[in-house]
């Protein structure tokens, strides 16, 4: 391979640029994926980053340091920066330097591979507090119940722990997947889903059983979860982001496994069922009456002899759940997410307490194979109506955004788009209830907001799925984990101030596989503060690799 044709460029800060339209793109991508995190994937050049965590993730799968460097050298267009090679070796050297194994009498043995490192970590006051006894400069013993806190403390000082203690099996549960779902559809795990399950399970040994599966929205993370449950055959606790997602999990489990409704508990604000498979929300777990009161429902984590705990959308895992997770390190733990990036930067906590990334597949690959839908994003820019411009100019910054977001011309555009997509299932998503009410009324479409009861929400979702309702207007309550299989058009009329997560989740609503190309419209007011936030969203979506088109609508188009 000629150097100019080589697809990757390794930067001095450890980021990797991967040029997509090169002959060796796919091989290079597969080669670097195990040890580099995908940061963004715009159309031409994808950016990955090598971090200590990504190196430890790779090391935990058994990859060798030389392999990493060899892969980089093979596909790199330019010489590797020496600093990067040094940092890889340094990070790699840290993994496995500290091993955690089972000891006697409810203790754990910490083995340290060098006296120098032993001195370094045992001189840390927080680590010192865990030590029961020590064998000078080689190993020391800690109580079994501090396993999580010990690992968490070590990661803070830059050392991952090779946790080989193993897991409690949990109470046995007979759990099997159906070949034909109750809905009548043929059911089976796709190849990448099977791979994800196997990677996580790792033959049932101590090397597996903890970790995070990274799959794009619509790629079937729920199915992977069920695959793991089928391996574990044990009582399982599933933590989700909201009630709609809980219901979604319940209906999926009933549809695709031999569990009955009686086997599945819903532990939410409405119901408090604790059953062999219990599904709850982060919100209920972290609920407390006052700021200083205890978390009333956190005991759920220990209410049964769970053998597996699953964290859906693990990138939004709240801090109290992290803390609770430190106490249940003897349980198998699986995180499901579309992105490892946390807005709060707590990726290290995720690594140490839930586990390393154990499977990742780029969405583009799934899109090419037809497992998720192809999507195009459109930004439609509108002028202000005459009077609104004056109101906008005279308003404060915060009000300005709202004035622009609620531009009445948007109603006309939404109507026009819906006419253009006649017959397709369409979601209209917005931030401001008054605006949504206005649009819902104009379109004669149902509206789901925070005040809509869960029963009504489920009913509307069901009608939308069945095609009885062609257009559904939703507020931000629909951002997370609802499954609307046939939505192929989403129209965003207003949003929060450029949140990346919100944008990803909204887009995720139309990514379920389908024959037609999905369309995601953002309607914004031109030359306003809304356009600035729209620009941030534009950048984010472009970073995800979506085609982003901009259309300017003039007064003439609107009258």
């Amino acid at each position, binding site marked *: 391979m000629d150097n100019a044709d080589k697809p990757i*460029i*390794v*930067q001095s800060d450890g980021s990797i640029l991967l040029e997509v339209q090169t002959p060796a793109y796919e091989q290079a991508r597969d080669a670097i994926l195990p040890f580099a995190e995908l940061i963004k994937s*715009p*159309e031409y050049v994808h950016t990955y980053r090598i971090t200590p965590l990504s190196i430890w993730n790779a090391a935990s799968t058994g990859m060798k340091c030389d392999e990493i460097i060899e892969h980089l050298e093979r596909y790199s267009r*330019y010489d590797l*920066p020496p600093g990067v090679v040094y940092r890889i070796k340094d990070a790699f050297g840290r993994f496995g330097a500290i091993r955690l194994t089972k000891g006697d009498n409810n203790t754990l043995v910490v083995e340290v591979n060098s006296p120098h490192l032993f001195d370094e970590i045992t001189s840390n006051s927080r680590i010192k507090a865990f030590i029961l006894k020590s064998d000078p400069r080689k190993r020391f013993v800690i109580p079994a119940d501090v396993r999580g806190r010990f690992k968490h403390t070590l990661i803070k000082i830059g050392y991952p722990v090779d946790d080989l203690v193993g897991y409690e099996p949990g109470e046995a549960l007979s759990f099997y997947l159906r070949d034909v779902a109750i809905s009548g559809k043929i059911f089976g795990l796709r190849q990448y889903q099977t791979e994800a399950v196997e990677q996580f399970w790792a033959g049932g040994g101590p090397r597996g059983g903890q970790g995070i599966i990274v799959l794009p929205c619509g790629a079937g993370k729920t199915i992977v979860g069920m695959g793991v449950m089928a391996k574990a055959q044990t009582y399982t606790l599933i933590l989700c982001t909201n009630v709609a997602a809980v219901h979604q999990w319940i209906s999926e489990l009933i549809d695709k496994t031999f569990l009955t409704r009686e086997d599945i508990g819903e532990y939410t604000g409405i119901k408090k069922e604790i059953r062999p498979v219990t599904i709850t929300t982060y919100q209920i777990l972290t609920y407390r009456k006052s700021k200083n009161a205890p978390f009333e429902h956190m005991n759920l984590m220990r209410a049964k002899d769970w053998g597996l705990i699953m964290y859906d959308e693990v990138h939004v895992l709240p801090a109290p759940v992290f803390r609770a997770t430190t106490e249940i390190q003897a349980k198998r733990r699986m995180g499901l997410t579309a992105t490892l990036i946390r807005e709060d930067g707590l990726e290290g906590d995720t690594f140490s307490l839930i586990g390393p990334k154990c499977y990742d597949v780029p969405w583009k690959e799934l899109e090419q194979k037809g497992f998720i839908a192809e999507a195009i994003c459109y930004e439609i820019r509108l002028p202000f109506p005459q009077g609104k411009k004056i109101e906008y100019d005279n308003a404060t910054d915060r009000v300005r955004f709202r004035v622009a977001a609620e531009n009445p011309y948007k109603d006309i555009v939404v109507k026009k788009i819906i006419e253009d997509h006649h017959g397709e299932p369409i979601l209209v998503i917005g931030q401001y209830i008054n605006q949504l009410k206005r649009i819902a009324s104009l379109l004669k479409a149902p509206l789901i907001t925070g005040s809509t009861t869960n029963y009504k929400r489920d009913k509307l979702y069901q009608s939308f799925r069945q095609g009885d309702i062609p257009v559904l207007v939703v507020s931000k309550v629909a951002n997370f984990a609802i499954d609307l299989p046939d939505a192929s058009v989403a129209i965003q009329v207003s949003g929060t101030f450029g949140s990346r997560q919100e944008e990803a989740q909204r887009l995720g609503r139309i990514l379920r596989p389908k024959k037609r190309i999905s369309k995601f419209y953002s309607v914004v007011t031109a030359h306003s503060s809304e356009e600035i936030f729209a620009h941030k969203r534009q*950048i984010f979506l*472009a970073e995800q690799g979506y085609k982003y088109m*901009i259309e300017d609508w003039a007064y003439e188009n609107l009258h």
Partner: protein
Amino acid sequence: MKISTNELIASLPAYMVDLISSQILGESVSAKRLAESLCDTNRLRRLLDNLKPEDKAILIDLYELGGEVNWSVFAGIYQHEVDVLKTGLTRLGESGLVFQGGFTGREVIIMLPSLFSIINGIVAANNLPDGDLVWQKGHRADIHKHILMMNVIRSGRLRCRSGTEPYKKGWSLLGGLLGLIADVPRIYWELVELGCIEEENNMLVINSGCAMGLALDGDLRYRIWRFIESCKGVTGLETEVFTLIGDGVILRKWLSRVLFLYLKQHCPRLLDADAKVSDLISLWLDLGILEEDTKGEWIRFGKDTCTALRTGKVEIPLEEYQEEIIIQPTMEILVPMDFDPVDHLNIGEIADIEKADTVSIYRITKASVLRGLKNGWALGKIRNFLDRISKHTVADNVAKTIKGWVEAFRHAYIIKGTFLVIKGGKGRISGELEEVLPDIYRISDKRKDDIITSLDKKGIMVNTPDASFDTEAGIDWGKSLPLRLSVQPGEKYVYPDGIYPYGMVISLPYGAERTEIFQQAIDAGSQLIIFYPKKGYGEIQMKRIAPVYIYRQAGNFFVEAFCEDTGEGEVFDINKIKAMFRYKPS
């Protein structure tokens, strides 16, 4: 070499020819015969073949020093081995290969000019490689990082002290963005020296003319500039190196020695010349001015450098630069380090640098587009530029977003114009002129000359402002190319006291040793040949004497001796004896 063999022989005092020829050739011959023998190539080759290695090294050093060198310089070169030098030179002097002017022993050392062509051949043969050489494709200095720094300064709006020194914050920004890949202070001050970075109202600004000059002239011109800059302080060093290597190859150790000699000759006070030479060669290799073979033994000029130094034409093959880059739909521009510097510089006018690295990342922002517009870019120009440099079609959202920003800017204009100021001009000037203020009329540049002529005819003298000069001068690279070989003959040494084979004429030592020489001769009953001034004229004459008695009078030592030349006894003031001839020990 400033002296010819004939001049050299002519400088030998006639009365010494006998003595010298008998010492060198073993027989007393005429001056003509002595000259013929000294020039005899076969004899010289034979002598050279039989020289001790250390003597040969001294001779070759002398050759590299141009055949003539001041004693102090030569002694400085051999500063830790002056005795070895003296011994070697004495042996060479006895063979008539090296001479020295005057009697003091501290004057110029001269190599026999006839040796030049022979040693030239030896040196050339030594610098012929045995077989084909494999050359390293080493690093070559480029202006990529300079362009990056200028683009950082463009988008960074850095304040500075007088003297173009950025504040700590500025250094921190430059270091933060460029520190991983560049020696920030060096590049910064190079740009200041080249005139690319200037100070304007306590802000750092880029001089567009110089910056573009740097980008247009490219990497090779920059490398040559660095090469010439590195030679500053040592007159003619760059020319010496170029003359020495030229199109050919040279042994690295040979080059080191020659440069060492050159430095010692031109900067005698330079300490640690060895280290300086080593640093210079490493620098030139790093710059890509010189190339090295894979074994690190041989060195040559880079082909393009050699051509540029010889012809003055600095041409870089187009294929050296990438001409296309990737513009991402995220508004990012990815610029590899081998991208065309002119286009790279232009990118900095319309995009902000976010990361400088192997591939640098720029982002097109609203502010950067505004900056571009202020610098004379228009929407069409931006579009065309991006279309031309982009490897792929520029994404729709990028083009539309830029268009949106450009359209959102409100414009005000500052116009340059020519105005005629004339009090009570109405009636005297054409009614078509537009009076913009009382007595001030705007006139078009095209009609300016006509109006001046017309007013002149009416007896009104028109004062015009001085012609304005273009303040954006191009880059000044200092020494121009091609390198011109030095043809100045240099100062010719004058040898009033004559030239003698090295070591044959020695000055008298100071102190007690001075009288001891005569006492020893008295004790041994031997003769001495002394150089003694004639009474009254100061002219030196040679005297063959047999010392008899030493005495002291009025604080001075005198020697009473029998003079073989006059056949009489004479008294000589020992302090006035200039030197004495030293016989070769038989």
